[in-house]
């Protein structure tokens, strides 16, 4: 079964450092997402991406965050200058192009990248 893969599985960084989290979405999917989950809290939407541009972003996704699809397969989340409160599990997800009616709009999530900011 096709799956979303994420690297690294765990990254420890110092406050103020830049971090890039990488994702390989399912190959025929066209919508891509980043979510995060702080330990013990809800899964929170960060950003959605379609047709090489951001389609929606949350309040969490401020200027410190950016996303990119540098080639045909990877989808990255960059945090420019990490803060302690950025420590969380970051999930990448992808979905097929939405069509009305029969498509469930199911999102396929990766296993996550755990970011620890010291």
């Amino acid at each position: 079964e096709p799956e979303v893969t994420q690297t690294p599985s765990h990254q420890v960084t110092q406050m103020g450092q830049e971090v890039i989290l990488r994702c390989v979405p399912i190959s025929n999917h066209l919508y891509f997402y980043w979510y995060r989950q702080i330990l013990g809290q809800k899964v929170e939407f960060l950003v959605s991406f379609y047709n090489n541009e951001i389609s929606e972003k949350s309040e969490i996704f401020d200027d410190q965050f950016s996303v990119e699809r540098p080639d045909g397969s990877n989808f990255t989340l960059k945090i420019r200058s990490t803060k302690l409160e950025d420590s969380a599990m970051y999930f990448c997800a992808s979905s097929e192009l939405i069509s009305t009616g029969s498509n469930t709009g199911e999102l396929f999530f990766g296993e996550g990248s755990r970011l620890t900011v010291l």
Partner: protein
Amino acid sequence: LAKTTQPISMDSYEGQEVNITCSHNNIATNDYITWYQQFPSQGPRFIIQGYKTKVTNEVASLFIPADRKSSTLSLPRVSLSDTAVYYCLVGDNVAAGNKLTFGGGTRVLVKP
């Protein structure tokens, strides 16, 4: 997006049926009801989606009454591996671009 309310936690035993009811009084005409499952330290996983009446797949059943103001996820004969958090989400897939808004979910603990 319609707000959802579901129990914070439920305990069950192996082999029992688990039913989790979600309230969504403000559901809109175009909204679908979707359930996701999340195991510890893993990403959420789609379980089932429905619009009205009953939907069944190999994992679960989803019961939706005529007024659609609530829904019940039914997990038949649970095992220890069904211990997870179960999220009820309500929204218009097309308008939301598949963006999901997760609530707190229901933490299901299956005991031996």
